[in-house]
């Protein structure tokens, strides 16, 4: 089973990289981009076959390592 984890800076935490990307898009002529937030995607191949158990395990991984919940939020998607 594969899991995909999306990690984003929490709302309210300034994202200077997203802001730099927004400026660059504007200078390329892509108008109307009001906000850009940059995050990361982490894909995991798991031996686990039970979806509920996989979700629990990946959530624990996010809490312990994959995200820093002081500044980041995460979501887990099983694929």
């Amino acid at each position, binding site marked *: 089973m594969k899991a995909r984890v999306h990690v984003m800076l929490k709302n309210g935490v*300034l994202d200077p*990289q997203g802001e730099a990307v927004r400026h660059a898009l504007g200078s390329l002529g892509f108008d109307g981009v009001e906000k850009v937030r940059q995050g990361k995607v982490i894909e995991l191949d798991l031996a686990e076959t039970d979806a509920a158990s996989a979700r629990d395990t990946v959530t624990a991984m996010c809490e*312990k390592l994959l995200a820093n919940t002081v*500044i980041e939020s995460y979501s887990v998607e099983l694929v």
Partner: protein
Amino acid sequence: MHAAVIVFPGSNCDRDLAVALERAGAKVSMVWHKDTEMPAGIDFIGVPGGFSFGDYLRCGAIAANSPICRSVISHAERGGYVFGVCNGFQILTETGLLPGALLRNAALKYICKPVGLKVETADSIYTGGYDKGQVITVPIAHHDGNYNVDADNLARLRGEDRIAFSYTDNPNGSVADIAGVLSENRRVLGMMPHPERMAEALHGNAEGATLFAHVVEQLVHA
């Protein structure tokens, strides 16, 4: 006074930190990240600057979960002294020993230059050799030193006099110009600037040496 300095793959200020502690009179043991226990009789742990584990995932995240860090955390939880500089500060926030997190610098650039640091409190073994309000010059060298903490924790840090140092001219976007913070029991300090790189006359000045001298003096007499 016996200090340990942790060495991670990618640490690059470990020797600077060890030399600064030794010149202040400490006995220093270098401790490899795969070790699971500190040498016996350690009074003080230094977590050095650098790029532990290549800054993969997040700065300090992998180091914070390495075997030796469990021992660093239990040392701190027993009331031991832990001092993190630069990447060491990032590691200490990742372990949860210090509040907040270090984000990418607001201007997105790596910054390496001497900065003015205001001593915000003299109430710790680290800052007791300075006067409250004194301004010292110490270099920074980081890409991710933008200290972020939520409003509740900021109010707590201020209320408990736990902001150790602030920038006189904020270089990186840190909340409230914060350059270094203390733990609740005032025994854990994390700071982005490098006092170990301003610790003897050949460095330009020796204002950083005061920190190490005071730490050693206090722990020798403890």
